[in-house]
């Protein structure tokens, strides 16, 4: 009987178990695919899939439930932190996250995110900021950069007319109920790796019961920005970060019930 030689091939990269084999509806160069993958990898690695209830919000990413093989409830526009509060309070053993865009979280949903944060709800908020309303055709968002042209700021965002970009994660970081707040980016592989570490930390903070955790992820919208996917990544790496600096904004999980540094 012949012994088979060991297979020299080694799997170094594959689709995470919780990422479904679905053709994407996202546009070329959109960051949601990368971020969905990070979430799926972490849920796999942390064995959280079977206990997770996700909250989908309104915007392009409402279809997150088509790509992530976990239980999901769909929220009205902006209300995801309130919906997640309801889930969390009656399911103390579940892992609960919201996945929200910048229009959803930083405009129509400001009351819900601020008060979920004030209450220190044990939820993880994944806040994808691409500075534009993608799903409705590229209108100005609260996070749109000064001077940025959109379909509703055709001459560029004018502070006198439309105010200033809102750095809501910094605002939330002031609240004692927020155990962890950070801003990452998908502009390059290095930052994708760091962003994954931020997400991991935010998930750990929830599991430890330390309070609300939020990771803002700067992302792209080539179609809305009127740039190619490659140009979008460069714009994100060099321009957007000027308004939204990257890094950990607050980590109050130390000294609270929860993990030490990870």
């Amino acid at each position: 009987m012949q012994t088979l030689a060991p297979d020299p091939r080694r799997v170094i990269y594959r689709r995470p178990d919780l990422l479904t084999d679905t053709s994407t509806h996202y546009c070329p160069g959109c960051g949601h695919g990368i971020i969905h993958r990070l979430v799926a990898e972490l849920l796999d690695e942390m064995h959280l899939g079977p206990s997770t209830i996700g909250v989908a919000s309104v915007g392009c990413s409402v279809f997150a439930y088509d790509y992530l093989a976990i239980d999901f409830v769909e929220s009205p526009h902006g209300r995801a932190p309130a919906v997640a509060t309801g889930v969390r309070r009656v399911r103390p053993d579940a892992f609960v996250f919201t996945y929200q865009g910048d229009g959803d979280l930083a405009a129509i949903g400001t009351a819900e995110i601020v008060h979920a944060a004030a209450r220190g709800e044990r939820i993880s908020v994944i806040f994808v900021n691409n500075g534009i309303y993608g799903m409705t055709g590229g209108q100005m968002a609260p996070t749109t950069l000064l001077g940025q042209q959109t379909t509703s700021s055709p001459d560029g965002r004018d502070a006198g007319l439309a105010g200033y970009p809102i750095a809501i994660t910094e605002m939330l970081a002031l609240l004692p109920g927020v155990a962890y707040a950070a801003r990452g980016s998908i502009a390059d592989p290095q930052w994708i790796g760091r962003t994954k570490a931020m997400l991991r930390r935010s998930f750990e903070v929830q599991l430890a019961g330390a309070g609300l955790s939020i990771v803002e992820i700067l992302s792209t919208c080539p179609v809305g920005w009127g740039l190619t996917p490659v140009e979008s990544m460069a714009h994100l790496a060099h321009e957007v970060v000027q308004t939204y600096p990257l890094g950990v904004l607050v980590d109050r999980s130390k000294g609270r019930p929860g993990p030490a540094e990870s």
Partner: protein
Amino acid sequence: MPTVIDARVGRPAGDAVRPILMKGNEAIAEAAIQAGCDAYFGYPITPQAELLEWMARRMPELGRVFVQAESELGAINMALGAAATGARVLVSSSSPGISLMAEGMSYLAGSEVPMVLVNVMRGGPGLGSIGPSQSDYFQATKGHGHGDYRVPVLAPSSIAEAVELTADAFEIAERYRTPVIILADGVMGQAMEPVTPVYRMPDRIPGGWELSGAADRPPRVVRSLHLQPEDLEAHDRRLQAKFAAIAEREVRWAGESLDDAEIVIVAYGTAARVARTAIERAREAGLRAGLFRPISLWPFPSSRLASAAADLRALVVVEMSAGQMVEDVRLAVEGRPPVFFHGRMGGMVPTPGEVVDVLRRAWALTAPGRPQPVGG
């Protein structure tokens, strides 16, 4: 504080079942607790604040969930999240707050999540007044939020009945996977009446749709978005079939003094209480009056009303509004007999004397031999 209730059997722990005096808001809250309510979400507003306050004390005592939300938007969406996991959820508010909840109610209906909402109605429009009113009838029975949907609406006319209807509301909500509205008014919320503290806890119906984490089963999604028109129409058709089933099976009404009545008042809630006194006085004066009291406002007891009214000389609709239910009454009876209306607005309650006057006027206007009015 009510007697201690053994929630497993819904009876007081002692032997005697003595009526106790309870405020409507508190009686509804306790009835919900005894019906097995797992979570309550609310926001302070007059005249329902005691309901929230009762829950604030009782729910944590029982290890259940109470959250005072940042707004009525927050409250109804917390309810959506909690109820999407199969929890039994109560939310309460009053008219202006209920308007804010219209968005959430549409999502609850569209994603078929059971939940019970109490509206202790006050005068409107706008901030209106804090006095009792029935001017949210259209809002409750005709859809509330956007889209093609209906919500079962139960209207108590006494605090004891409110207690019974609270358990019924949870049962209907879960049986049909739909939000249900208990439509009370400021009098029902604020008045105190004897309540026999015997409660009912409806059985839980395992649905196989609730979110619990996709362990050893395929993932589930509670959603109202169906982007393809073909898909949404199929979903809407299924919802309409459900509403048709509710309309068939969940009609509730009560009749009083109908057997020999020649003229009948149609009224619900507090207006029906006023009507009852007016009917007594009318009968003392020789006018054979009766009461038809819808309890389910949707589904409206249209065919029951039509058969009860067929041989009457007139109907008189009494509401604490400019005339909202009267439209359903007119649709139900199609002009036979003539329908008259009396309403007060803005937090004012009709007096029995006013109602007797309207009965007399209707009686006179419909005298045999006169040209028949279509109502007024």
